């Protein structure tokens, strides 16, 4: 079993480039050997592609990639995909799952503090009606639930704002920091627009963290700064942070800092590949490749995403966090259409 105590002993955003290279060199060797040993299809891929292949995320749709015995699988995560498309299957054992939760906690705590805050989830608890359903949406809510307390769901089963619950939450925690979490598009469509229409302004404090992608909002011409301004005006919350993450690498999310840059933490790294040659280290726009040290139950430690991005710098962000920081532009042209974290297709 791999020992992660050295990684978890580190502050999430305090590792400079040299130290990170050293840490990742050692860890990627260890993880590669682990997965080649326990996952035969992965070993075959490495035999053809070399020892550190970036696996295309869609490979998890077509090949069962698992590095634990089937009876040790505690939960199988499925990715989005509109109906008719094949879903990805990500196999988690208890250790990987717990490690992902802890990494998420470390990353988010460095933005909002270690204290668990009253949590308003901008979603419906009906997501959990079918408890066997482990979607990206459920995973996000489950992960962030650990960071909060006294959890309140802002939407009812019909995706309408539960105004009584939201107002009671706002009243109960008036003047105290709170945490709001949800998926970007759903927050906009089902929470912000509904509050605005009902002319309800909330007087909340604290943090709003959201993820799941901008595709649907870009389509209706809502930018990140529009989103921040609109949500701040309607809820009172001034710290609005986006994050970039995927179900294939749950936990090691890339959080947006106060400067609007997405940051790799100690648990993850990001590289840009040239879209034509797939060579790493490309400057300018290219395919985002993400590395996560967390998965041991499936070989998803190095992934080639279908998103287009650009590295903005390393260790030099004015926010003070070390590590690479970058920007995501959206899906690569020609990429398969995926949902915004499978959020509610009817939108």
């Amino acid at each position, binding site marked *: 079993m791999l020992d992660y105590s050295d990684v978890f002993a580190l502050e999430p955003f305090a590792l400079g480039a040299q130290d990170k290279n050293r840490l990742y060199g050692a860890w990627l060797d260890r993880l590669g050997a682990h997965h080649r040993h326990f996952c035969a299809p992965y070993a075959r891929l490495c035999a053809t592609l070399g020892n550190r292949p970036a696996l295309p995320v869609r490979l998890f749709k077509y090949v069962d990639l698992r590095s634990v015995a089937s009876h040790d699988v505690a*939960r199988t995560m499925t990715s989005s995909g509109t109906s008719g498309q094949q879903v990805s299957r990500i196999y988690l054992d*208890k250790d990987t799952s717990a490690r992902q939760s802890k990494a998420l*906690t470390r990353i988010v705590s460095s933005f909002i503090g270690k204290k*668990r805050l009253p949590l308003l989830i901008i979603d419906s608890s009906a997501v959990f009606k079918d408890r066997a359903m482990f979607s990206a949406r459920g995973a996000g809510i489950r992960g962030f*639930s650990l*960071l909060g*307390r*006294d*959890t309140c769901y802002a939407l009812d089963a019909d995706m309408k704002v539960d105004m009584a619950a939201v107002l009671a939450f706002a009243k109960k925690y008036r003047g105290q920091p709170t945490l709001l979490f949800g998926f970007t598009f759903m927050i906009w469509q089902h929470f912000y627009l509904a509050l605005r229409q009902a002319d309800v302004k909330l007087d909340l404090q604290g943090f709003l963290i959201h993820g799941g992608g901008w595709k649907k909002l870009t389509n209706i011409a809502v930018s990140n700064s529009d989103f921040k301004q609109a949500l701040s005006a309607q809820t009172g919350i001034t710290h609005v942070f986006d994050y970039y993450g995927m179900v294939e690498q749950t936990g090691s999310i890339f959080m947006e800092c106060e400067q609007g840059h997405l940051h790799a933490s100690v648990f993850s790294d990001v590289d840009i590949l040239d879209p034509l040659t797939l060579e790493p280290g490309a400057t300018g726009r290219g395919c985002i490749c993400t590395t996560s040290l967390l998965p041991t139950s499936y070989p998803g430690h190095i992934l080639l995403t279908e998103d287009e991005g650009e590295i903005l710098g390393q260790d030099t962000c004015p926010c003070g966090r070390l590590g690479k920081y970058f920007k995501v532009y959206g899906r690569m042209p020609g990429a398969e259409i995926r949902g915004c974290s499978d959020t509610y297709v009817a939108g």
Partner: protein
Amino acid sequence: MTNREKYNQAFIETLEITADQLGDDLTYQSIEAWDSVGHMQLVSALEDAFDIMMDTDDIIDLSSYPLGIEILKKYDVEFS
């Protein structure tokens, strides 16, 4: 009510189990009700019962009936 009784009651009520199911074998995901949703319900029941607020790492580590007792000791909850 003793602390042990309060502890047991939190498990029995949130996981909808009977007293004879409490023990070393009772672990996270060993029964259907103790899934991630049940887990957060259990955590809030324990926090209410002992008037504490647990750290997130402890919530993640609370993966069995006996481990919960060890974790609660960190919050000065004593078990005789």
